[in-house]
């Protein structure tokens, strides 16, 4: 591009990027930074006011207390389950629509899949609340004839609820990835004698991997920070977000220290997948 040869190109790029960068760096990164400065301060236990004196006590509490370690593991477990279930549901559906369905019916199928993306977050969780309601909910009605009863609110309901919420975020990038698969490669695979399953695991999955990872950023991160779904569907079950929320008004430094856990996990995750090219598939 000839701009690269132009000496003023740098100035033009700087002009374009300055305003958005100012917003993100000063406001967003600045706020995050301020929050984590807070985490090395302490509070006056009587007034709950922040005292600006250095302490590592918040981090010592977070990392040595078994309870917070368990919450972190539980949260990771939920986020991983949600991501895997989303992928297991999304991959066959995306493949079917992109590769098996007739070209004419594709836009309709995609529209039907995106519908829940536009439905409100709370509406979806509300819907699952009515599904899981113990003793009188839909699931209970559905499975009571075979002698089972609704699992009620708890970790299972949270995983299903979060899967439902973030499923479209997984389907869309995977669908885009499947659509780009060259037909010749798939033909070559079956011409060389590979069965459907072999073609899927040796050809389709490796090629669409960056798209699946791109989807997992959303399902993973969104699950990890959630506390509202947990409040509505979790019963007494708690995740990291709930711990942050509960401490937020009483002990902000401690809440900030806890909030650092998902941030660190996300940063590690993001930098480890950068090389897969997943970020270009968002």
């Amino acid at each position, binding site marked *: 591009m000839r701009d690269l040869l132009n000496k003023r190109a740098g100035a033009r790029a700087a002009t374009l990027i300055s305003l*958005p960068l100012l917003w993100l760096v000063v406001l967003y990164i600045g706020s995050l930074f301020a929050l984590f400065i807070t985490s090395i301060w302490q509070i006056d236990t009587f007034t709950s006011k922040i005292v600006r004196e250095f302490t590592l006590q918040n981090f010592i509490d977070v990392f040595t207390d078994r309870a917070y370690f368990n919450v972190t593991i539980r949260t990771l477990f939920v986020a991983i389950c949600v991501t895997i279930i989303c992928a297991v549901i999304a991959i066959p559906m995306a493949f079917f629509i992109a590769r098996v369905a007739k070209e004419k019916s594709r836009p309709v199928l995609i529209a039907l899949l995106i519908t829940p993306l536009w439905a409100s977050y709370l509406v979806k969780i509300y*819907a699952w609340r009515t599904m899981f309601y113990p003793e009188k909910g839909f699931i209970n009605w559905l499975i009571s004839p075979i002698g089972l009863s609704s699992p009620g609110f708890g970790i299972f309901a949270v995983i299903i609820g979060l899967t439902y919420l973030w499923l479209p975020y997984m389907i869309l990038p995977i669908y885009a990835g499947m659509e780009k698969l060259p037909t010749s490669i798939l033909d070559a695979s079956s011409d060389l004698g590979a069965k459907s399953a072999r073609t899927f695991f040796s050809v389709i999955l490796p090629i669409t991997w960056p798209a699946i990872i791109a989807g997992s950023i959303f399902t993973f991160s969104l699950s990890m920070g959630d506390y509202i779904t947990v409040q509505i569907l979790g019963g007494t079950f708690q995740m990291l977000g709930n711990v942050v929320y509960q401490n937020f008004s009483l002990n902000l430094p401690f809440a900030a220290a806890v909030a650092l856990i998902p941030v660190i996990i996300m940063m590690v995750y993001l930098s480890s997948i950068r090389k897969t090219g997943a970020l270009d598939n968002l």
Partner: protein
Amino acid sequence: MKISKAAKVFLYLMMGFGFSFIYVPLLLVVINSFNTNTSFAWPPTGFTTSWWGKAVVNEGVKDAITRSAVVALFATTIALFLGSLAAAAISRYKFFGRDTISLLFVLPIALPGIVTGIALNNVFTNFLGELTIFTIIVGHATFCIVVVFNNVAARYRRLGANLEEASMDLGANRFTTYRLVTFPLLRSALLAGALLSFALSFDEIIVTTFTAGAGQATLPIWIFQNLFRPNQAPIVNVVAAALILISIIPIYLSQRLTQEKSN
């Protein structure tokens, strides 16, 4: 490509399972909004439209919808402006730190909402003193920028620079090139980004919880506040059902956009 019969049956089963997983809960909400029984009991005990009548005249609902729409409109406007500027800079120029900056533009949606929420809350309450509708807009714009940026940057990547170069080789200056060549090519991506950003903002609850002042309930916050109040439950259900039905509009619009793209 040949697909074995077993694989085909499996795919059809997964489609059936997937679609019932997606639609049964939503359908249930719509059906329940006509249920005479005020609890969540299934099956419904009778048919009534009285909850819809009560929800339509509910002041709290009306107030919350207006506030959500205003917030989403302003946040989307800011995001369109800043997001498309950033996409142009990152897609069309090479400069020091570009990769870091493009990673930075993923952060507001990649980091958990509660972290963004309490970070902004901390800064707003310390520097501005109180939370207002303005702070909700600023909070929403922060992640809406990312949505617009992603849409527009993806379009830039797909377009390549040939058309713009041709335009400038033919003597058009940068402004004319943008007006007559780049912008028309970006238009549907901008629209799609705006639509998504509006929907995200309208629906956001986590960042909103921490950036909204007292008495500044947006629609999601209103729903959450009333979810556990037994006497409000039927009205919450009607609002939920209405939101499901209204969500058909953006789907219709985005379908139109993709058709425009393929033509």
